[in-house]
């Protein structure tokens, strides 16, 4: 962060007419440099600044706000600035360099997590940019190369850290998806929210599934015993009264709440009837 700022100030010192610009610029940079607050503060401040220049065109602003990526807006802002100031012959060069420096600055801010040695790189890049602009090349020429970097910036922003290749990008996306699903699973498995660590959570999940499967086995055993008994002496009337009486008790202990209990009660009556009919029929045969 520091080298660009120094550069700007030195530049503006060289050309007093642009000094105010150089002074204004660091303010939008600072919120922009914070990776978390890139979109909000940076954009707003920048637009505000440009509005202060009195050259904001409605169309441009719209397009800028539409673009969700701040870096693009930075590029646009730079281009607009250049155009705006291209009328002033003297300060045009300097302003263009400051804007380009800002762009680099932003990229720098995004790479904050990367080793600090990159700062030196950007400093040298700035120097190059300055040199090229100081050559007397038109600001238009500068604004053209500003277009392709936009694409780069988008990618850089998506990375936002150490990752440089598509593999680690995909890996990160995958990890995010996994942790998302882990959260869902944690909500499903009782008592799993307190467990910390994916491995432990998975252990918990595995245990839970095993216990559920064992429960199913146990219940089918129980049903086997009970089912045969039902066939021996089915009593119909007792069923319905107990059926209704049972619901609230069981519903309380249910994960799905009372909703299922009621659904069960209502959905089951035809089934019970069917059952009794079936049982009756079977006994008759």
């Amino acid at each position, binding site marked *: 962060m520091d080298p660009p700022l120094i550069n700007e100030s030195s530049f503006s010192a060289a050309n007093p007419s642009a000094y105010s610009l150089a002074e204004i610029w660091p303010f939008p940079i600072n919120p922009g440099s914070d990776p978390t607050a890139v979109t909000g503060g940076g954009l707003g401040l920048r637009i505000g600044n440009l509005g202060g220049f009195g050259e904001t065109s409605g169309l441009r602003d719209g397009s800028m706000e539409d673009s969700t990526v701040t870096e693009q807006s930075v590029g646009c802002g730079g281009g607009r600035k250049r155009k705006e100031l291209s009328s002033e012959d003297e300060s045009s060069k300097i302003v263009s360099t400051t804007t380009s420096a800002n762009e680099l600055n932003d990229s720098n801010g995004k790479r904050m997590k990367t080793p600090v040695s990159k700062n030196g790189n950007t400093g040298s890049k700035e120097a190059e940019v300055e040199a090229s602009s100081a050559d007397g090349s038109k600001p238009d020429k500068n604004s053209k190369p500003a277009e392709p970097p936009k694409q780069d910036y988008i990618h850089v922003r998506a990375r936002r850290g150490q990752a440089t290749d598509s593999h680690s990008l995909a*890996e990160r996306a*995958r*990890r995010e*998806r*996994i942790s998302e*699903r*882990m959260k*869902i*699973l944690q909500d*499903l*498995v009782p008592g799993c929210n307190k467990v910390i660590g*994916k*491995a432990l959570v*998975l*252990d918990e*999940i*595995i245990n839970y*599934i*095993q216990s*559920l*499967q*064992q429960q*199913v*086995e146990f*219940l*089918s*055993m*129980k*049903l*086997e015993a*009970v*089912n*045969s*008994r*039902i*066939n021996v002496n089915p*009593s119909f009337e*007792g*069923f319905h009264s*107990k*059926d209704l009486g*049972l619901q609230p008790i*069981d519903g309380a202990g*249910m*994960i*799905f709440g009372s*909703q*299922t209990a*009621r*659904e*069960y009660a*209502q*959905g*089951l009556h035809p*089934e019970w009837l*069917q*059952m009794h009919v*079936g*049982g009756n029929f*079977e006994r008759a045969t």
Partner: protein
Amino acid sequence: MDSQHLNPSSLKSRFTARFLRALIKINAQKPISSSSPRDIFQRYQRIKVAADKSMAYSVRSRRTWSRATLWKLRSRSRRRLASSGRRSSIKTRTTTTTTTTTTSTNHRAAIVEKTSHEKENKEDHVGLAVQAEELRELVPGGESMDLCNLLDETAHYIKCLTTQVQVMKKIANLYSLE
């Protein structure tokens, strides 16, 4: 809320309907003549299969695990038809159930070996290779899934298992109270 628990096409009511029908069928097919352990075990197996099957059917083929379950059950019944005696089928079934439930400790050692050979890359990044492998064993059809899908399927499977357990518990309670 109201529309939901009145919904006859909800998973729970579908499962209940299917399972009860299956129970009736089982009772109708096998009049309770004997109380020999073998017959009891057979009936138990049939009820368990019926529970699994009706669960998988009520999920239909929307999920990988239900498809896998149905496929497994179908191939098993085919096998049973192919093999003349019933005993062999029971044997295979018991072995499968025991392997899934009991041998988790042995399993870990085996998994570690396996992962070091084959599946080293993906889950190791997250550090979940062993658990993922174990989970694959538990969730039907999980052998061929990557971790993301596996977790997805696991979530759904857990939901369905809890439903299954609830319904079965309730039916058992109602019967045994009678």
